[in-house]
């Protein structure tokens, strides 16, 4: 069966965003440091329409994260546009008219909405009946490929606690943010068991991959 895979950058003390997160600054104070290892990579620059960049030990990690992905699930906050009803001129995502997903995306929301066809193979589908329904629909759309959980951290935790995450790919950045949003918060008194898969040592980041045995 196709897997549900989640990747994210985390500080050594467990934060995925700094304090004072807002719609304008979703990473919070200091949160950008968690992603600085990505920007010099040629593979990232190419995905974002830029030339040049470098290839290093983190390159295959970036490549594997997008390989064999047939659909994406994300939370409403990740998609953006603020909470509540969509309004007259509804938000069309953070990523412009040609988003970098190139596959069907399933957005968890309490507010129903017609699906959106974007350029480059991305469609946005809005799911109002919960995380399991969204995953089922994503799996159908993925046609045997895996499903990528795009976040945010709160949606990840919902899938984690429900035992639905198959693979966790964490990029640990050697900084202590000291406050902000923790990745693992309220994961319950019996969090799921995990197994290490592999470790990749990149410049300024350590990539740790785990699977959840079923």
């Amino acid at each position, binding site marked *: 069966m196709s897997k549900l895979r989640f990747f994210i950058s985390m500080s*050594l*003390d467990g934060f995925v965003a700094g304090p004072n997160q807002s719609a304008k600054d979703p990473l919070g104070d200091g949160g950008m440091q968690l992603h600085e290892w990505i920007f010099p990579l040629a593979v990232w620059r190419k995905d974002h329409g830029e030339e040049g960049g470098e290839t290093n030990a983190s390159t295959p990690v970036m490549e594997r994260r997008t390989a064999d992905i047939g659909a994406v699930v994300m939370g409403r906050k990740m998609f953006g546009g603020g909470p509540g009803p969509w309004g007259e001129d509804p938000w069309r995502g953070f990523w412009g008219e040609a988003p970098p997903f190139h596959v069907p995306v399933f957005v968890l929301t309490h507010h129903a909405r017609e699906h959106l066809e974007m350029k480059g193979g991305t469609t946005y589908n809005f799911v109002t009946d919960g995380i399991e329904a969204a995953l089922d629909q994503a799996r159908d759309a993925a046609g045997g490929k895996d499903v990528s959980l795009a976040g945010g951290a709160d949606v990840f935790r919902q899938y984690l606690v429900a035992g639905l995450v198959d693979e966790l790919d964490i990029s640990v950045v*050697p*900084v*202590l943010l000291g406050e902000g949003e923790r990745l693992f918060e309220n994961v319950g008194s*019996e969090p799921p068991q995990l*197994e*290490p898969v592999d470790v990749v040592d990149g410049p300024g980041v350590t990539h*740790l991959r785990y699977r959840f045995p079923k």
Partner: protein
Amino acid sequence: VSTISHHTMSLDGFIAGPDDSIDWAFAFGEPTSLGEETMHRIGAIVAGRRWYELATARWDGVGGIYHGEWDGRVFVLTHREAEDADPRISFVSGGIEEAVGAAQESAGDKDVGIFGGSLTRQCLDAGLLDEVVLHLAPVLLGSGVRLFGDERAKQVELERVSVGEADQLTDLRLRVRR
């Protein structure tokens, strides 16, 4: 002489689980040689009251440290001295500087080990910590004692010195940037 915080930490950041449990830490095999290297570097240890209670209950004192293979003194930062403590344990009530200072004196040319989440944070806040050595365990504990504390704290940059893969543990050695 360096000050080294040395722990086995769960993926969600805990060095002790619910009810101070630490048995989980032994379930993932041995670390790489980094564990032993760190032990040999450490000449004296600063620990907290929580470590003292746990170590006294489980090992009658210092016997459990590094499987009993380590030789040195432990300085426990606490306001409540205990009687009949292991002769290798001393109590320090003055504060983190005093405790680290006493341990440095005892360690001689060797380094000082820091055991405990609260103490690691106190050392970071006081600018006394040089290194963090971690054996990262593939487990989520959900609650317990966090290595880097529960309270809001200032940002600290580190520099990774080495990464190693053991049986199931991931070993990280990091230097604190100041």
